[in-house]
């Protein structure tokens, strides 16, 4: 009977999962683009840029996600009408920007100084050196640390529940209200769905990490 309920409600759960994935993709994309810009500003920028970058990053890493989501929806909503989905993307995207900037800053700073010197020495401008030499090396190192960010943001999408985004967790909640009970089993199915997406995503990132390795510099297998 419970099996029947679950099977009947699978389409709703999949709808919710799809919303969660859209939310995840949007917030990660925002975090990727702005996190990379923030990291470049923090590493190469004028001190004013560095300082404001650092301030942004400290603030958005220091606030609970839930508070950010509430601020973006109800706070911003005071001045400007905003739907729950974009409010959640904004809140989580800002937070992800702060976290991803740290990933990018780390991999950019890990590129040996001599690489830039060599690029400059053949006549590249600073921007060309970063574009053709630093970033191609730095970005290869991203998938490893980025998989952490992927996992934690996937789980954070469930917080959009509180402002009424009908994502996976909320769909689960609806099923529980409409079928009276079955709390543990329904949430277990919901949990399983998050887990599978997480696992698949990490597998893809692991593959990407392998594919991007520079020949001769691969990490030693601990055999």
């Amino acid at each position, binding site marked *: 009977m419970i099996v029947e309920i679950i099977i009947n409600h699978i389409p709703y759960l999949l709808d919710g999962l799809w919303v969660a994935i859209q939310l995840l993709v949007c917030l990660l994309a925002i975090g990727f683009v702005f996190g990379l810009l923030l990291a470049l500003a923090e590493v190469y920028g004028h001190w004013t840029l560095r300082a404001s970058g650092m301030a942004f990053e400290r603030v958005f890493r220091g606030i609970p996600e839930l508070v950010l989501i509430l601020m973006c929806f109800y706070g911003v909503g005071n001045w400007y009408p905003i739907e729950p989905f974009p409010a959640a993307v904004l809140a989580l995207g800002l937070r992800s920007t702060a976290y991803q900037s740290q990933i990018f800053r780390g991999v950019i700073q890990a590129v040996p100084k001599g690489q830039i010197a*060599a*690029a400059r020495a*053949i*006549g590249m401008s600073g921007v060309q050196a970063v574009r053709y030499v630093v970033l191609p090396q730095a970005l290869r190192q991203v998938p490893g640390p980025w998989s952490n960010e992927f996992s934690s943001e996937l789980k954070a999408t469930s917080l959009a529940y509180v402002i009424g985004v009908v994502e996976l967790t909320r769909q689960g909640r609806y099923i529980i209200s409409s079928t009276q009970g079955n709390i543990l089993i329904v949430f277990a199915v919901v949990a399983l769905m998050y887990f599978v997406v997480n696992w698949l995503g990490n597998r893809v990132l692991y593959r990407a990490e392998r594919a991007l390795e520079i020949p*001769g510099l691969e990490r030693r297998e601990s055999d």
Partner: protein
Amino acid sequence: MLLDVKDIHKKYGEIEVLKGVSLTLARGETKVIMGPSGTGKSTLLRCINRLSPPTSGEVFLDGELICDANINEMRQKVAFVFQDFNLFLHLSALDNVAMGPMRLKGMKRAEARELAMQELERVGMQTHAASYPAQLSGGQQQRVSIARALAMKPEVILFDEPTSALDPELTGEVVTVMQKLASDGITMLVVSHEIGFARRAADAIIFMEGGHVIEEGPPEQIIGAPRQDRTREFLNVIAEEGQIS
């Protein structure tokens, strides 16, 4: 004069590393700069292509002042070979050499790679074109980095201790390549203690100490009969270290 270096001073805070160094290099000439470590030899090379801009003094290439405004064009004409190679780690040997012509001279990829292959042949590395830096020995990496410099068709190449980071048995292959370039008429300014190279390939040896040029002269004279005591003492020291070949 192709390269005219005039009264270069370089200060790091209170410490003056270069105290007024001048030298000239005619087209096709090879000069070797020697001197004790900490004397400012590498700093001088880095001042010439402004990887570390001089505190005062001027450098002219073919009569044109090298300055911040034209530095990226000038560096295409004044190539630099690093002590520790600094090959681009994410690129194969071939693409390391093709990078400059492709990104800076607007060559098509295929054309740039063809040129790169020729330059790799010139340094005897054509069979390693597909290898990545981490898969090459130090000597091989340095030869690729010389090919990378050559591919820009520079007016002059600055060599900053090109064999110092190599195991002794690997210096020979690099020195051989450099000798070949010198006899091909490439203009070279080389910071190195390879006496054998200096004797066979240099038009002049410049001996530096304490931020000054102490003396300059043809290799036979500097090695055989240095005028300055300091030069003689220095040559004796490196002879004892077994670097004379």
